[in-house]
């Protein structure tokens, strides 16, 4: 709430003070003459410094997808670089805008003297050289740390060479993410989708691919973007310094449901991660039995053609792997979450209590294109009863 009042205050003070300072044409000159030097300074302060300060102190940056609330080494160095340049830019901003306002106040015309000719200066070589060198110095000051940081966005720095690491292949699809975990030999260990689980304080090396168009993988609190380009392999890496759920979404425009191509990264402590990866490695053979009405529907509705449930005859590879769908928190690449209706994503990730009624899941099963425009998953004419059965079945894929 602090934000709102800051903004309102900022615009009222900012615009009023600007208006007072640069509205001399229609204002009575006699009144303006009473302005003292100190009140000019006050305006100068109000206009250039105060709004900036207010904006900086008033803005909360600790938000779920914030680029300025880093929880990993890569995001941290990106954030540090941003703030370095930001403060340099802020100083230049205050100088230039301050100078501009000062000139407008100091050199505004006086009533009856509109036609006076001021001194006709054509230029000044020393000044020109000065204000060429000044930006050169600024540019050098920001270019050096920039170039130093670039290599680190591709591969971990030497300091982290010996720390434990895992490698995950990320494949972008319209509009979901596939995660293929590699074992130490470089072979696929297990496959999951839309929710990447990682151990904390571990280097996570990603290789990025795309199955269709260009996507872009980004988890702002852990690391900035890298594109997944069809026909190419890209690399990036990150680590998480704390456990928790980190949100991100595709950043390269990729078609209708680009806005809904979201993902989460769940950082566990090492033990929990091992447990999770054990489960992921296993199949779910026992669900594919005739007595399971859900499996019957899953087969007869054709779900098996696109989705894999490891250990069964469902081997489709067009849609996300659903082997352990029941253990996930989100539906359809995070287009929906599994909490109660009306609960926001942020609230749900803070306290992931699932909706026992599966309202969101059933909505997705019955109306995929409505939830996710352009979705390849068609509306299969699933009735309410069938949706109940299917939802139960899917939620039991632990």
């Amino acid at each position: 709430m602090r934000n709102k009042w800051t903004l309102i205050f900022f615009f009222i003070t900012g615009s009023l003070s600007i208006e007072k300072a640069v509205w001399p044409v229609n204002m009575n000159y006699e009144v303006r003459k009473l302005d003292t030097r100190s009140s000019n300074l006050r305006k100068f302060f109000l206009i250039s410094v105060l709004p900036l300060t207010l904006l900086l102190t008033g803005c909360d940056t600790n938000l779920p997808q914030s680029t300025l609330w880093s929880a990993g080494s890569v995001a941290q160095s990106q954030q540090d670089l941003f703030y370095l340049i930001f403060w340099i830019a802020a100083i230049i901003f205050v100088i230039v805008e301050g100078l501009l306002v000062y000139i407008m106040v100091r050199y505004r015309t006086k009533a009856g003297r509109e036609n006076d000719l001021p001194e006709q200066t054509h230029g000044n070589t020393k000044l020109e050289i000065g204000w060429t060198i000044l930006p050169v110095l600024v540019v050098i000051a920001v270019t050096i740390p920039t170039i130093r940081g670039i290599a680190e966005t591709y591969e971990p720095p030497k300091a982290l060479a010996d720390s434990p690491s895992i490698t995950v292949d990320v494949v972008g699809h319209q509009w979901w993410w596939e995660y293929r975990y590699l074992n130490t030999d470089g072979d696929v260990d297990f496959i999951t989708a839309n929710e990447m689980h990682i151990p904390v304080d571990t280097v996570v090396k990603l290789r990025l691919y795309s199955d269709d168009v260009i996507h872009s993988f980004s988890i702002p609190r852990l690391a900035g973007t890298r594109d997944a380009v069809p026909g190419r392999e890209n690399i990036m890496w990150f680590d998480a310094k704390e456990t928790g759920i980190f949100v991100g979404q595709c950043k390269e425009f990729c078609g209708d449901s680009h806005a809904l191509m979201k993902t989460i990264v769940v950082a566990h402590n090492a033990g929990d991660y091992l447990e999770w990866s054990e489960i992921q490695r296993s199949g779910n053979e026992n669900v594919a039995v005739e007595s399971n009405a859900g499996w019957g529907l899953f087969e007869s509705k054709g779900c098996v053609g696109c989705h894999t449930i490891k250990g069964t005859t469902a081997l489709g590879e067009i849609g996300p792997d659903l082997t352990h769908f029941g253990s996930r928190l989100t539906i359809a690449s995070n287009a929906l979450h599994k909490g109660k209706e009306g609960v926001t994503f942020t609230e749900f990730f803070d306290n992931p209590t699932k909706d026992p009624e599966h309202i969101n899941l059933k909505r997705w099963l019955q109306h995929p294109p409505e939830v996710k425009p352009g979705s390849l998953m068609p509306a299969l004419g699933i009735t309410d009863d069938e949706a109940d059965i299917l939802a139960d079945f899917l939620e039991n894929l632990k």
Partner: protein
Amino acid sequence: MASLSYILRRPTSEYGVWGWLTTVDHKKIGTLYMVTALFFFLIGGIEAIMMRAQLATPDSTVISADLFNQLFTMHALTMIFLAIMPLGVAFFNWLVPLQIGARDVAFPRLNALSYWIYLFGAIILNLGWFTATSPNAGWFAYANLTSIQYSPTNGMDYYVLGLLVLGTSSLIGAMNFVVTIINLRAPGMTLIRMPIFTWMAFITSILLVLAIPVITIGLIELGFDRFFGTLFFNNAAGDVLLWQHLFWVFGHPEVYILILPAMGMVSEIFPTFSRKPLFGFPVVVFSGIAIAFMGWSVWAHHMFATGMGPVPDSVFAATTMAIAIPTGVKVFNWLATIWGGNIRFTTAMMFALGFIALFTIGGLSGMTHAAAPSDLQQTDTYYIVAHIHYVLFGGSIMAIFAGIYYWFPKMYGRLLNERLGKLHFWLVFIGMNITFGPMHYVGLIGMPRRNYMYPADMGWDFWNMVASGGSIIMAIGVVVFIHNFYRSARKGEISGDDPWDARTLEWSIASPPPHYNFAEIPTVTSGDAFWHQKYPDGDKGVPHPVPSGGEDHEEVHIEMPRPSFYPLITGIGIALLGLTLVTHPIVGVVGLITLLWGSYGWMLEPAE
């Protein structure tokens, strides 16, 4: 064959509808450009307002994903290719001949053709609205989302054909201005005595001549991929990233094509309303040239996220940072121009000052994403949206408004209403900051751009509502402006020839100027030629009353290029040819015949 030229009698009327359709007068063509571009500026604005309506609240369902994608694609295309660029060209048309003391451009009929192709290209680009299939893959149109497989509607066809036609128009226009500026300057007007706006028009035109062919190659390859099944941008046989390189090799100089005319305008306005010459004139010229050169070496900063590798990332980060140097030099020279001046706060001057204030913010935020690692967080977020709007709205549009208030008296012989003008300024200035200011913050806290909806509770809700509110304020400002323009053009206060006590040759003749501009071609002996005529005693001299344009008011008979139908006919031919691939071969046949008719008629028509 000579009979061809008699199919249409050479038009003689300079008035009425036929007068406009057949005109080859640079001033009337300039007005056509301006009115058309302002129309598209409104269309682009309506598209923006629709998007802001959708984004005002989270999980909004005001408009669909597909419509939203069409809107943001068309908003960018409209504002860049159909509004800001042609508004710049409108000023080139009006001012370049007047500023260099010429009676018209070098190729008057070509100039008319350039306008007609622009108009038809704009229509082709917008055809999709009639079937709700406008281009929807972004104005940057990254392959392979633009392939038939992923964009099966006609939308991207309109994109390819519309931009190809528009590119032809830009190319023709730019070459015309390069030739005009090189060859038609008044006696004594050396390059360094040339007005700064004409200088920037010159640099911009050269940029256009060099940049348009690059996008043309890309568009032709994309068109071949879509229409004939070639594989230029196929990920297996061709290269997806090739498009991005072609697009941005054009796209970044394009940014300077949009901003350099704006810089030229404010560089004329500051001296006039400070009553001082432009500070460091040669430095302002050379920094413009430097920006134009360096603009070619920075394109891949749009592509840091594509994983080009550390070396290209470093090179393009460094070149991008370096372009801040000439830009900074320009800003300091403007500040030095008004420093010590006798500043009159006319609406034109307020917009020009607003330009410095806002463009500086856009430049500074540019520094943070020139830093590649930092950019990886900001790319494709609202932070970039904020940046480009501070540059293109706070920069180009503010300067264009300044230019309109400044040169309107020359165009119509009447002043725009200053009271409405100031209202317009404050509404736009405040509205613009309320709309785009918070986008910096929203972007930094992770809101990606080009999302048709966003979830609640991410910290984005309130600021999006604020931005939408600000866009309404801006829209009201633009309505005030349109009202002012319409009203003042007919009923505005009579301005006289030189209402601002200005400095360049266009103010030495009547307002509006006679058909032939200059009864007698002036001889130039210094920069700010008209100023030195008026103040011959030197820098501190007393104004010396020279009856500006006095003799021009009498009707003088000067042989001028006569109106012609053929630019219009040629333009229609080119547009029909352009439409062939999305309609029917018969359209192409008709187009080809029309084009041949137009060009043969043109050839055989006596030029004088």
